[in-house]
């Protein structure tokens, strides 16, 4: 087996046993990237020199007997909306072309403190707005299972890199499903923590009441490892949670016997591809066979969640993206007045989807429309939260397919924003509620594309969420690897 295909846990074990060095691990992902990037385009920037220096430092530290933790010496990919000091950070937008941030995001600092090697910055839908990574200003990322298809989005670059082995793990950000949906479409584990558990300081904001950073990995164990490395209070993020972090390790392998698992009626029917529904059902049967009690529940407000999301997210984005005005960073177009300069710079710098959402949000927040749109959407948000609260009085976790479809073809939904938005129908409710959720691969469809199984838990319920996810991983015995990874691995 090629080193690039090892999990974080396996790579770490070999590193500590002295069988491989961090430089070896880095060389393995560099080699995998050099063989796959021309097709996939998962990365926007690879920091060869910085990664090499970090890997050598990690090896030197281990040789001195200093072990910074389970990510020590492990090459990791970062979605390019997390700032990295001195390394270009673009959000896949022309408006940040050439931007070299003067600081590291808190998650980057935490990864570095844990000894991780930052390998590169991955592609995304511009400013994380999209579900396919087609909205990048720097080209589409392809799915390693079938390069004619999208990897999902917006964290499609991190998902594709982790799936193909050009990173051992990656970070994504999830505003409406942007970690979990690409996890589902690339056969990786994508996790969104409880709102507030992971600092967003240095995450370039899209919709502040919804955004959360989380891991993309090849196993549930690795997801736990990365989650533990990045979670924790940060005074630099005003929304950072101050209480104790959930302890997720001890019950991880406890199985599902006696757990109550709820199926959401509104999120598992209409619009779901038959193969996805079939894989979902097979996994439910496996969970039932392992002793879980399956119940069907209704969350009536989730039918309105998508509509509420497409008011709240654009409204917040229109405010957050006001800072990109050609004054402090990024390129500037000329103008006789400040307004002309800003209008020209923003028109040139933002792509169509970002422009569409800024206009939508500006409209929804403008005088006379605020109550009817944004105000009403915030009330829907309360109703969604109430629905979840009622559900969790009856069950330990809720489960849904992560995405109603497997990976779709490049270009298939690009011309129809509404159709694209519908691919987030199962993931959006937990962003509105702030609860944790994870996507675990559970099978393949008839074309050989991965299907994701989503586990949702109440706020701070990461322990039971990871526990059920681990059971799904074990029971579904998902070991398939994308064609692009195995063809190279065999070479």
């Amino acid at each position, binding site marked *: 087996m090629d080193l690039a295909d090892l999990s974080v846990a396996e790579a770490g074990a070999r590193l500590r046993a002295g069988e491989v060095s961090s430089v070896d691990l880095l060389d393995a992902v560099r080699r995998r990237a050099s063989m796959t990037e021309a097709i996939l385009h998962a990365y926007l920037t690879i920091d060869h020199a910085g990664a090499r220096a970090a890997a050598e430092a990690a090896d030197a530290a281990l040789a001195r007997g200093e072990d910074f933790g389970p990510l020590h010496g492990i090459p990791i990919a970062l979605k390019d909306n997390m700032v990295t000091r001195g390394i270009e950070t673009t959000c896949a937008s022309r408006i940040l072309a050439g*931007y*070299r*941030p*003067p*600081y590291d995001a808190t998650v980057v600092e935490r990864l570095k403190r844990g000894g991780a090697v930052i390998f590169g910055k991955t592609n995304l839908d511009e400013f994380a707005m999209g579900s396919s990574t087609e909205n990048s200003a720097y080209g589409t990322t392809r799915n390693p299972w079938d390069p004619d298809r999208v990897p999902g989005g917006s964290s499609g670059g991190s998902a594709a890199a982790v799936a193909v082995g050009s990173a051992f793990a990656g970070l994504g950000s999830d505003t409406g499903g942007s970690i979990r949906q690409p996890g589902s479409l690339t056969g990786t584990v994508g996790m969104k923590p409880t*709102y*507030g558990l992971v600092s967003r300081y240095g995450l370039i904001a899209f919709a502040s*009441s919804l955004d959360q950073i989380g891991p993309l990995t090849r196993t549930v164990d690795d997801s736990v490892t990365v989650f533990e490395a990045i979670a924790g209070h940060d005074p630099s993020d*005003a929304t950072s*949670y*101050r209480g104790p972090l959930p302890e997720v390790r001890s019950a991880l392998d406890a199985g599902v016997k006696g757990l109550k698992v709820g199926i959401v009626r509104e999120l598992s029917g209409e619009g779901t591809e038959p193969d996805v529904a079939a894989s979902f059902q097979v996994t439910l049967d496996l969970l039932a066979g392992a002793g879980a009690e399956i119940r069907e529940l209704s969350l009536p407000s989730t039918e*309105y969640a*998508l*509509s*509420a999301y497409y*008011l709240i997210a654009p409204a917040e984005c229109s405010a957050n993206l*006001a800072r990109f*005005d050609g004054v*402090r*960073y*990024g*390129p*500037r177009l000329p*103008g*006789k*007045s*400040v*307004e*002309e*300069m800003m*209008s*020209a710079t923003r*028109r040139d710098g*933002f792509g169509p989807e970002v*422009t*569409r959402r*800024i*206009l*939508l949000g*500006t*409209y929804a927040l*403008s005088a*006379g429309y605020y109550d*009817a*749109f944004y*105000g*009403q*959407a*915030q*009330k*829907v*948000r*309360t*109703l969604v*939260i109430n629905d979840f609260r009622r559900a969790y009085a009856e069950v330990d976790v809720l489960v849904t397919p992560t995405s109603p479809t497997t990976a779709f073809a490049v270009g298939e939904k690009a011309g129809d*924003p*509404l159709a694209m938005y519908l691919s987030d129908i199962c993931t959006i409710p937990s962003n509105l*509620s*702030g609860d944790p959720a994870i996507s675990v691969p559970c099978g393949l469809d008839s074309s050989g594309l991965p299907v994701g199984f989503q586990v949702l838990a109440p*706020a701070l319920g990461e322990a039971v969420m990871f526990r059920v996810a681990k059971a799904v991983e074990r029971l579904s015995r998902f070991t398939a690897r994308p064609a692009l990874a195995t063809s190279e691995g065999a070479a």
Partner: protein
Amino acid sequence: MIPAGAWCLEPGAWCLVPGAWCLPGTIRFMPVDIDITKVARLARIGLTAEELAAYSTQLQGILEHAARVQALPSEGVAPTAHPLPMVNAFRPDEVEPTLDREEVLAQAPDREGPYFRVPPFLED
């Protein structure tokens, strides 16, 4: 018949646009009425007439879907701005290191000494 670009509110509900088109009887419709030129100006995005027209059509479609939120009864429901039950976060009022000024200004498209430089705000 429901006209394109309209959304049905509850019977007797208020209407955003006075004199909006209504069905005979009690049901009223709220046309999704977008002054796209004004919205683009507020957003500081300088679009051409053609682009404005295209975005206007797309926004109408999305807003008609999004306007479904108005169909959900929400009498007495408090809005949620944020999923955490917290109001404000304070830190001790102590001086801490800040970003390096030169490093920050090095990213600016134009500067004058220690300042960001921009075109004039006011016309002569």
